[in-house]
């Protein structure tokens, strides 16, 4: 979890795309960085050494060596604490993810989405296969239990494509992607936007195109893990934001009922 390890005091959106890439690379290769020179590092990520230097300065380090030193010290500290991967350390890491996700959640967007979904406009949820389908099913069932009508799950990319082509403008499309970079989902979201649909996305905190093109967005923390190509990224934070949203949504509907009665 890089924002914690590097303890960034600057908002992520003040970094340029290049700089975000560098950050991502450091995050993925923390242990290797501490033995690299700035030249090898720059070569590896295909940026100039001055870009790297500017990046270090932006984070508040005097230069690349200080960043390396900082990472190494963090590493030593963490290896001191976690000699054995215990349930306790899992507790800690899940709680940090949870807290991070909580701090990201923005009631304005939740409110707007709740308002949209209670307006009885048809909602199409794209189901891209794999683990994300479980999140899609979760959202779908909870919306039904909350008394929503007009929820349609699209089980395949071709079907979603067909919906986008044939439906009138202003329908709601929901896309879930743990990375926000899954190409087929991303293309469909772009297409939906182009056809005048309202796009809601649920994706990770990382700088991602899906979040950028969608009208409304719910974000969460996610760290990519896989086993020889098989995706095993934790979906817990996705489930968490979805359940919080549903609770929020029901509170919102209660509020509306309240108004109608009074």
């Amino acid at each position, binding site marked *: 979890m890089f924002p914690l390890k590097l303890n960034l005091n600057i908002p992520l959106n003040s970094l340029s795309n290049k700089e975000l890439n560098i950050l991502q690379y450091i995050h993925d290769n923390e242990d290797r960085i501490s033995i690299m020179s700035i030249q090898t590092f720059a070569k590896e990520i295909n940026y100039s050494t001055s870009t790297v230097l500017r990046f270090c300065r932006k984070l508040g380090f005097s230069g690349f060596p200080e960043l390396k030193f900082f990472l190494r010290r963090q590493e030593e500290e963490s290896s001191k604490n976690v000699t054995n991967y215990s*349930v306790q350390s899992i507790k800690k890491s899940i709680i940090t993810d949870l807290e991070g996700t909580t701090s990201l959640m923005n009631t304005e967007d939740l409110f707007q989405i709740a308002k949209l979904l209670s307006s009885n406009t048809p909602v199409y949820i794209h189901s891209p296969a794999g683990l994300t389908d479980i999140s899609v*099913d979760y959202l779908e069932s909870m919306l039904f239990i909350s008394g929503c009508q007009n929820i349609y799950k699209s089980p395949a990319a071709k079907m979603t494509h067909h919906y986008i082509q044939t439906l009138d403008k202003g329908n709601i499309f929901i896309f879930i992607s743990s990375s926000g970079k899954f190409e087929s989902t991303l293309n469909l979201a772009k297409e939906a936007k182009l056809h005048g649909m309202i796009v809601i996305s649920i994706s990770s905190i990382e700088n991602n195109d899906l979040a950028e093109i969608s009208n409304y967005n719910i974000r969460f923390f996610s760290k990519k893990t896989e086993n020889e190509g098989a995706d095993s990224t*934790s979906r817990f934070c996705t489930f968490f934001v979805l359940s919080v949203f549903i609770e929020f949504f029901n509170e919102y509907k209660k509020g509306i009922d*309240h108004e109608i009665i009074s």
Partner: protein
Amino acid sequence: MKSFLDTVDVNNLTSSEQIIYQYFKDHLNNIVYLSLSDICKELYVSNATVIRFSQKLGFKGFNELKFQLKNELNLTNKSTNAWDTIPHRTSILKDFIDNIDDKIIEQICSEIKNHKSIYIYGRNMSSLPAKYLQSMLNTMDIPCIYIDWIDFLSALSKSFPDNAVLFIFTNYGDKSIYEPIVKQCHERHVKIIWISSTDLDSSLLSSNDIYISTHEAKLETPPLLTKLTSFLLVQFIIEYLRHNIDKQGA
């Protein structure tokens, strides 16, 4: 609900301000979530009109008015205040995490590692944590079988192989439904790991089985169990397995 809006003298307002006034009164609970431009779009008035309106009521601007409304909402009507949802949810989960027994997670993981055949059962809402566990185990090269029908489960329970472990995810775990199945499993020496959202009838299980209740409180309207704590347990099992398998590989 009483609010400062009731004390406003309507006669002093212009016609468009009266529209705004009426809108605020009608949507008291939700104004706090709306931005200035949302309201303007809805009412076809300019930003400046809303701000002038706020100033007429004695506020510096729209935000100050919103702040006042929010405070009144907090005081008078707790149930319709959705602002608290997120921190409330987070704190419940954190309590749950703190109370997870390390030993049980370790025990479940060693059962997974030591048993050849793994079956996972869950239907309706419980199918989701069940499927999550199955997909995750499969990506970690631990083969397992997912059962989503109670009829399948009762058929399979007659022919489970030796050295099998059965995960059962339920909301309520009705005794009359599950008793015959559990009995058959016990006859075949199947280890049962039962994760239930509410408390089970303890006579269902033998001392050899593992049972975790996730003590989930139901949302009132709609009657919904979000299963989040069950997902959380699955996540713990997966993380623990992942790190301990990796270590063996290295």
